């Protein structure tokens, strides 16, 4: 059993170790500029490689991923900002305002949204959302970009947060609820003062889960993001690229590099995505344990 439980962390370590070893020459080639430069260029893959900074790479090759980091982080955080109030509203509505008879049916509908394949959200984005943004909001008339990606992501993650929160709300002990009512609290105060503080840790957990999904989302983002390249977004209508969609869309071109440096650079991109997700999870652990402390002190 111990062996089995160690299998998953071991597999994770193996993946990270592989990425690290495989991308090592690229890390050496790009240095810290990999994270801070906005320009990504595979270079001239058809010509003979040239000696650049001690390594044979295609002429003109340069690898900078700040644009993709910005696209990933911004679209995910805007998605969270849109999704959190929606999810809290939906969860409270389902827990408090809906008769227990139809609650299972409604909550099942919310859960259903969570299992819709991302390509379906992407198609909805292309055919419905993008024309709407283009006609009514965007100053350039072009709907592709950061806002479209964020809204699509928000829709994908809302059910994750809402269902996690709903489960937690349903488990708040009856006594807490009823004693708050007995003290003369309004329904709003019961929810906001007696129930929500008890589920704060779960809410944060749900948000982190959702953020993890948003950071790694590939297909839906690729379809609506506008594929920003070599420029940082300047407004919510700017085209962006996320790290995950950049990887899947450019691995094929990278394979044409006879020196293999492009594929190694893409492995390094994957490594960066892994560490971003890790950092988000670590931050969430700290945040939610903080929330637990608050709850304990209140008791």
């Amino acid at each position, binding site marked *: 059993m111990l062996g089995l439980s160690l299998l998953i962390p071991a597999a994770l370590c193996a993946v990270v170790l592989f990425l690290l070893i495989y991308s090592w020459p690229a890390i050496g080639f790009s240095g810290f500029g990999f994270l801070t430069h906005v320009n990504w260029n595979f270079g001239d893959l*058809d010509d*003979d490689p040239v000696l650049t900074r001690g390594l044979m790479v295609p002429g003109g090759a340069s690898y900078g991923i700040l644009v993709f980091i910005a696209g990933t982080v911004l679209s995910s955080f805007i998605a969270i900002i849109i999704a959190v109030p929606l999810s809290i509203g939906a969860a409270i509505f389902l827990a408090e305002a809906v008769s227990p008879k139809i609650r299972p049916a409604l909550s099942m509908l919310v859960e259903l949204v969570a299992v819709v394949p991302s390509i379906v959200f992407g198609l909805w984005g292309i055919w419905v959302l993008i024309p709407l943004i283009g006609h009514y909001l965007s100053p350039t008339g072009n709907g*592709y970009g950061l806002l479209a990606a964020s809204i699509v992501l928000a829709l994908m993650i809302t059910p994750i947060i809402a269902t996690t929160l709903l489960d937690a709300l349903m488990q708040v002990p009856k006594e807490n609820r009823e004693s708050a009512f007995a003290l003369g609290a309004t329904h709003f105060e019961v929810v906001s003062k007696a129930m929500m503080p008890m589920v704060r840790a779960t809410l944060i957990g749900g948000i982190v889960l959702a953020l993890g999904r948003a950071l790694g989302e590939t297909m839906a983002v690729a379809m609506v*993001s506008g*594929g920003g390249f070599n420029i940082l977004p300047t407004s919510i209508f700017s085209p962006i*690229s996320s790290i995950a969609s950049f990887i899947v869309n450019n691995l094929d071109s990278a394979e044409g590099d006879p020196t293999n440096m492009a594929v190694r650079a893409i492995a390094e991109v994957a490594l960066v995505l892994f560490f971003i997700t890790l950092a988000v999870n670590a931050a969430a652990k700290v945040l939610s344990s903080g929330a637990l402390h608050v709850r304990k002190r209140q008791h």
Partner: protein
Amino acid sequence: MQITKTFKRSTVAALAIAGLVGFSGTAKAQVDVPLVESGSSLLYPLFNLWVQGFQASNPNADITTTSTGSGAGIAQAIKGLINIGASDAYMSDSLVKANPTMLSIPLAISSQAINYNLPGVSSLNLSGPILAAIYTGKVTKWNDPMIAAANPGVSLPATTIIPVHRLDGSGDTFIFSQYLTASDSGWASTLKYGTTISWPPIAGEIGAKGNAGMLAAAAANPGSIAYIGISYASKVAAAGLGQAALEDADGQYVLPTPANIAAAAASVANTTPPDERISMIFAHGANAYPIVNYEYAIVDSNQQAAAVAGAIRDFLTFAITEGNNASYLKQVNFLPLPAPVETLSAAQIAKIQ
């Protein structure tokens, strides 16, 4: 280690099958050997048609096709993970130097249209330098003097141009950027060509995924311009997009009609070298459409087993002969290889041993 082991095992299996076939002496040779094709998404639908057609006369043929992308097709064929790599581009000089046994064999002829969304403008002339100026952000309005000069008598609106490009690595980006490299010196010295281009940032531009994404983006945005593979021609027309006439190497504006694509193919047919790695982009010749390319099979001439080599030869021979009939090619708007090129491809196929 693992790969070598698998190879040995499959070689043994292939030899065993070859032995059985040899003993029975009745069945057509090699047809039982399983083949794997992978690569270009543009060639994928055609490969599926070919496999169906091939199996009609060789019911035991076992050919798996997958759509992964030209880069993956070439890379996996070199590594020996697949038998036939499908690619919109021939192997680069540097890759051939590193892998001298790999062949680039043309199977059919494809091309690309430049489509635009300008309601009211039914015909439009464009050139390499104009497209280069649009895709680098130097020309931003449709009534720019540069475009107007190429279109006397056409009333062009003052609409902002929305350039649409592929955000995924693509053979279409490769041939589009090859046209710009061949026809515009500024583009040739900076951005060059490849399946992914380091696109200069332009306000309002769109990166779209796949030919389907290009079509959706162009159809939804008046003022847009996009390069889309010719196999999408009927869908592009149904969406109401215009098709631009492009300036060829002789200064004529030509549309991607079958006759003009064939003219480009014919002009290169006699100068195609024995290894068939030649660009048909911006070819000289009367009415030669400038964005035309061979679609390639990437195959290792040095096969591990004779039975596998035979099966590859049989299938590719079918593809360039019967498979070049209009009944197959019409469905994707490809054109057949000119006779001299078919001869060269047959000679290369014969090298697979």
